[in-house]
C-alpha cells in the first residue's frame, strides 16, 4: 500500500507540472489572442474612403500646398476637407488618365454630390476644437523647430497622410460609431495639462477651453 501510495504521489507530481502549467499557458495565450487580436477585430469595422484620394500627386505633380485645400476662412473657422465644388475647379473633367479619377468625376463632380468622407478624428458632440488656436503661429512661438507637418500629424492629432498615395483604412467602433483614431482626452491633456504651458496661458486647461 505504502509503495503504491508513493508511486501515485510521484506520477501525481509529474501530472501537476503538465496538467497545471500547460492549461495555464494555453489559457494565457488564448486570452491574449482574444483580447488583442479577436476583440479589436470584432469591435472595429474596417472601411475604405469613398474616393481613393492621392495626396502625393496633388503635392508633387500639381505643386499644391496643404493650405490650398485646408485653409482658414475669414470668420476664423477651418475649411477641413474641400468641397466637391472646390475640387471641381480643376476636376470638372478628368485631368489625368486614371480610372479612379474618372470614377470620381462621374460619381461626384457631375452629380454635384459630396463624398461621404470618413473623418479619422471626428470628435464627440461636446468637444469644441479650434484649429486656429492650434496654428503654427501660436504653438510655434515656443516650439520654433516645429513644421506645420509636425504640428498636424506628429503630435498624434492626424494621421500623417500628406505624402500618401492612398488614404489609410478607416476603422470605426461598431458600438460607439467613433473612429478608432479619434483623439482621446488624455492626448489633449498631454499638452493642455502640461505645467510648462500654464505660464503661457494660465487657464488653458479649463473645461470650457475644449468642451461645449
Amino acid at each position, binding site marked *: 500500500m505504502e509503495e503504491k501510495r508513493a508511486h501515485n504521489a510521484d506520477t501525481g507530481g509529474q501530472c501537476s507540472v503538465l496538467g497545471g502549467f500547460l492549461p495555464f499557458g494555453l489559457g494565457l495565450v488564448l486570452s491574449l489572442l482574444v483580447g488583442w487580436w479577436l476583440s479589436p477585430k470584432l469591435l472595429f469595422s474596417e472601411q475604405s474612403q469613398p474616393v481613393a484620394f492621392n495626396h502625393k500627386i496633388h503635392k508633387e505633380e500639381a505643386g499644391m500646398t496643404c493650405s490650398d485645400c485646408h485653409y482658414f*476662412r475669414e470668420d*476664423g473657422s477651418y475649411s477641413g476637407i474641400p468641397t466637391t465644388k472646390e475640387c471641381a475647379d480643376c476636376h470638372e473633367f478628368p485631368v489625368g488618365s486614371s480610372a479612379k479619377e474618372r470614377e470620381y468625376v462621374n460619381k461626384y463632380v457631375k452629380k454635384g454630390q459630396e463624398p461621404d468622407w470618413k473623418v479619422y478624428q471626428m470628435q464627440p458632440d461636446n468637444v469644441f476644437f479650434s484649429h486656429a488656436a492650434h496654428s503654427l503661429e501660436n504653438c510655434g512661438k515656443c516650439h520654433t523647430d516645429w513644421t506645420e507637418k509636425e504640428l498636424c500629424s506628429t503630435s498624434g492629432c492626424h494621421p500623417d497622410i500628406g505624402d500618401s498615395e492612398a488614404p489609410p483604412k478607416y476603422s470605426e467602433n461598431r458600438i460607439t460609431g467613433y473612429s478608432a483614431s479619434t483623439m482621446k482626452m488624455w492626448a489633449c491633456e498631454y499638452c493642455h495639462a502640461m505645467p510648462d504651458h500654464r505660464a503661457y496661458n494660465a487657464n488653458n486647461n479649463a473645461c470650457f477651453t475644449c468642451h461645449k
Partner: protein
Amino acid sequence: MSGAQQSFKILWGMAIDLDKCTGCGACMVACQAENNLAPEKDASKKQRVMNWLKVFELSNGKPFPDHDTAYLPRPCQQCGNPACVPVCPATVTKKDEEGGIISQVYPRCFGCRYCMAACPYKARYFNWYDPEWPQGWDKTLSPDVSVRPRGVVEKCTFCHHRWMKAKDKARVAGNDPYDLPEGAYVTSCTEACPNGAIVFGDLNNPKHLVHKLAHSEYAFRLLERLGMDPQVYYLSRREWVRRLGNHHLENEKTGEFTPLGGGHHG
C-alpha cells in the same frame, strides 16, 4: 463661499437696463434657438420648462394709479463666488476659465441637482425629459452647442461658443484673441433685444460700455447681499426696482446692506 475668489483679466458681463425692457421675450426666444433647447411639449408645466434666460415680471405692489411694472430678464449670473460650483460632486461646473464664465460639462453630470438647490437665482434647469425636436425641426439645431439628454442639469453659458468663434476670428485676422473689441463677442439675447436693453462686454475693460454701466449709480445686482458677486448688472432709475432686486426691508435705505461673503470687485 469660502476660499479665495479667482481673479480674471477678462470678466464677461452684462448690464441690463430694466427701464428699457418691455418684457417682449425676444431674448428668451433667441436663447432657446441659439442653445438648442427643444420646444416644450407642455409649456404650462412651469416647474418642468427650460429657460436659460427667463423674463420675470416685477410689480411695485401698489394699486392704480400708482401701480408700476418692470420686467427682469434673468440669465445665469456667472457669480464670482458661485454657490453651484463647490457643491457639485462631479466637477461638472467650474469657474476656472479666463472671462469668468461658469462652465457646465454635460456628460459629467449625473443629475443630483445640488447646484440647482444651491443657486439663489434659480438659473439652472434639469432635463426632466429627453429633448425632442419634431420631424424636420432638427435642422434648426446649432452644431456649436451640444444637446443635453434627460437627467442632466444645464444653464446659460453666455453663449460661450460665440466667444470661441470670436477668438478664432481674431486669431486668423492676426489680432489678440484676449483683447476683443466691443461687439466682437455678444450673446444671442444681446443681439435679439429690440430695445438695446442688454449690453454685453468685458467688465474689466474701460473701453467697453458695460464697464461704464456697471459703475452707474443706477446699477445693482440681484440679491447682492448674498455675496455671490454676479457678473450681471441691472440698471433702473426706479428706486422700487432697485430695492426689490435686493429684497430691501422697509427700514433699510436703498443700496445699503452688508454682503454676506464680501466679494466686491472694482
